[in-house]
C-alpha cells in the first residue's frame, strides 16, 4: 500500500542525483574510471603485468613503449599499475560490505536487548583500545598473508566502528514515537526492527561505509606494503610501493607511481563519500 504512494524509482534517483554536490560527481568519475580500468585491465594494459624483460630493468618513465618505466624485475610499471586496480578495489569494498552485514544485526540486537548490548559494546571497547593499523597488523600476522586473510583482517578491524554506528543509530530510534506506536499496536519485536528501525540503520551504515572505504584501501595496501598482505607476483599497489622502496634512490618511479594510484583512488572515494554524506544530512555545516 505504501509502495504505491512512493514516486517511481527513476524519479527518486533523479532527485537524489541533483542533491549530490559537484565534487561527488568528480569523485564518482574517478572511482568509475578505476573500476573500468580493473574490469578491462587485460585489454587496456600494453603488456602482460608479469612479463619480464630484465635488460630494461629500472628504466625511467618515458622509455619507448614503457611510459611509466620498468620495475626491479623488468616488468612494465604502467601495465602492473592498471592491473593493480583490481586488488585495491576488492580490498577496499569487500571488507566494508562484509563487516556492515555483520555489524547491522549485531548493532540492532545490542540496542534492543540491554544485557546483550552491554556485553557486545564492552567487547567493542576492548577492540577500540587498539589503534586501527596496529590491530590490522596483528591480525594479518596471526592469519598469515594472502588476499582472503587480508579481507578477513580488515573485516575484523572495521567491525567495532560499524557496530558502533549501527548501535547508536538503532538506539536513537528505540523510543521514537513511531516505534512506540508500533509497540502499542502489538507489533512483534522482529517486525518493528525490520520495518521501522532497519531502514534508518541501513542508511547510516551505508553513508559511514562510503566515507571509510578510502581509509580501508590505504590500510590494506599498507599491509601489503609491509609484506603482510597480498603476495608477489600479484600486481598490487601497496606491494609494488614496498618493492620499489629498495631502489628509491636509483629509480624513484617504481615506488611512487603505484603509490600515486592509491592516492588518486582514495581521493575519488573520499570525494564521493563526503558528497554523499552532505547530500543525506543537509543540516550539516559544510
Amino acid at each position: 500500500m505504501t509502495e504505491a504512494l512512493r514516486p517511481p524509482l527513476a524519479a527518486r534517483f533523479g532527485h537524489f542525483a541533483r542533491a549530490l554536490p559537484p565534487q561527488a560527481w568528480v569523485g564518482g568519475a574517478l572511482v568509475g574510471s578505476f573500476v573500468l580500468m580493473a574490469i578491462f585491465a587485460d585489454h587496456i594494459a600494453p603488456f602482460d603485468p608479469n612479463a619480464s624483460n630484465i635488460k630494461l630493468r629500472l628504466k625511467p618513465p618515458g622509455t619507448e613503449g614503457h611510459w611509466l618505466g620498468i620495475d626491479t624485475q623488468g616488468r612494465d610499471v604502467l601495465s602492473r599499475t592498471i592491473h593493480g586496480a583490481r586488488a585495491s578495489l576488492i580490498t577496499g569494498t569487500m571488507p566494508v560490505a562484509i563487516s556492515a552485514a555483520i555489524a547491522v544485526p549485531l548493532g540492532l540486537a545490542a540496542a534492543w536487548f540491554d544485557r546483550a548490548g552491554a556485553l557486545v559494546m564492552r567487547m567493542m571497547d576492548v577492540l577500540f583500545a587498539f589503534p586501527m593499523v596496529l590491530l590490522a597488523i596483528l591480525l594479518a600476522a596471526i592469519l598469515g598473508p594472502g588476499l582472503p586473510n587480508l579481507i578477513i583482517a580488515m573485516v575484523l578491524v572495521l567491525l567495532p566502528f560499524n557496530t558502533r554506528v549501527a548501535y547508536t543509530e538503532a538506539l536513537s530510534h528505540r523510543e521514537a514515537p513511531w516505534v512506540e506506536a508500533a509497540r502499542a499496536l502489538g507489533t512483534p519485536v522482529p517486525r518493528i526492527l525490520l520495518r521501522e528501525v532497519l531502514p534508518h540503520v541501513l542508511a547510516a551504515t551505508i553513508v559511514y561505509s562510503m566515507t571509510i572505504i578510502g581509509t580501508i584501501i590505504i590500510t590494506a595496501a599498507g599491509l601489503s606494503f609491509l609484506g603482510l598482505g597480498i603476495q608477489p607476483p600479484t600486481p598490487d599497489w601497496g606491494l609494488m610501493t614496498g618493492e620499489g622502496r629498495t631502489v628509491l634512490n636509483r629509480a624513484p618511479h617504481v615506488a611512487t607511481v603505484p603509490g600515486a594510484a592509491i592516492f588518486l583512488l582514495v581521493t575519488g572515494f573520499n570525494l564521493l563519500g563526503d558528497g554523499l554524506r552532505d547530500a543525506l544530512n543537509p543540516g550539516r555545516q559544510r
Partner: protein
Amino acid sequence: MTKYILMRSFQVLPVLLGVTFLVFLSLYLLPGDVTLNLLGLAANEDSIARLRAELGLDRPFSVQFGIWLGRALQGDLGVSHVMRTPVTAVVLEKTGNSLILMGAGLAITVVGAALLGPLSAVRKDRATDHTVKTLTFLLASMPAYWLGLVLIVAFSITLPWLPASGMYDFITPGGLPDLTAHLFLPALTTAATSLAIVTRVTRAAMVEALARSHVTAARSRGVRGFRLLYGHGVRAILPTFVNICGLQIGYLFGSSIFTEVIFSWPGIGQQLYTSIIARDGPMVQGCVLAVALVFVLGNLLADILIRWLDVHRD
C-alpha cells in the same frame, strides 16, 4: 573533578584486562612453535615435552594467562627469542623513541591546525579558504607510506638537504640539532593525515563560533582581527579542538608505524614490524601491549583534559 578522574580511570581497568587477554591470546595464535624456536636443532619429542613443562605450556590456558599477567604486572614480559634479551627493556627504549616522533607529529598537527583552521574560517569562501580546504582534502587522502617516500625523493635524494634514515648521524652523532634534522621528515609524514583532519574540523567549528552572538557583540564593540579570533572565537571551540586532537592519537600511531619502517626510526612500530617478520612472539606481545597502553592512557588524558576545560570554562 577528582571524582571524574577516578571514575574514568576505573572504567579503563576492564578494558586494560581485555587488552592484556587479547595480547596474551595473540601469542597462542601467532604461527610458529615456541619450543621449536628455542630448541632449534636439539628438538626431539623428549626435549620438547621437558621444555613445555618448564615453560608451563602444559598447564591449562587460564592458569598460563594468570601467571603471564602476574609477571607482566611486575614488568616482566619474557625474553626475546631473537635478541635473547628481556623484552621490557627493549620495549621501553623503543616506546620512548616513538613518543618523540609522535610528540613531534602532534605538535605539528596542533600548531598547524590552530593557525590554518581559524585563518580558513575568517576567509570563508575566499581564495585562502579554498586553498586550505583543497590542500587538507588531498593531504587526508594520502597514504603515509607514499608521502614519506615522496618526501625522501624530494628532500633527501633530489635536494640532499635532510637525512632519510635513523635518529642520529652514524659518524658524527650530535645532540638536539642532529635529532631535529632527522626528525623533520618523519614527523611531517606522521602528522599529515591528522593535520588535515584537525584543520578541517577546526575550520568548521570556527565558522560556527564566529556566527554566534557573543562574537557579533564583541565585533560591534570594535574588537577586530587577531583579538577577536583568538580572544573570543578560540574559547568557544577549545573543547572541540582538544577532543579532535585526542582522537588523533590512533591515527598518529597508524602513520608512525609506516614512517618508522620507511625512515628506519628505531621506534616501537619498526620493532613490531621486524619482530613479526622474525616470528619473535614475546617481542610482538610486548610491542602490542606497549602501544595499546599508550593509546588507552592517551585517550584517558584527553578525556580528562576536555572535562577540565568544560568545568573551568569561565
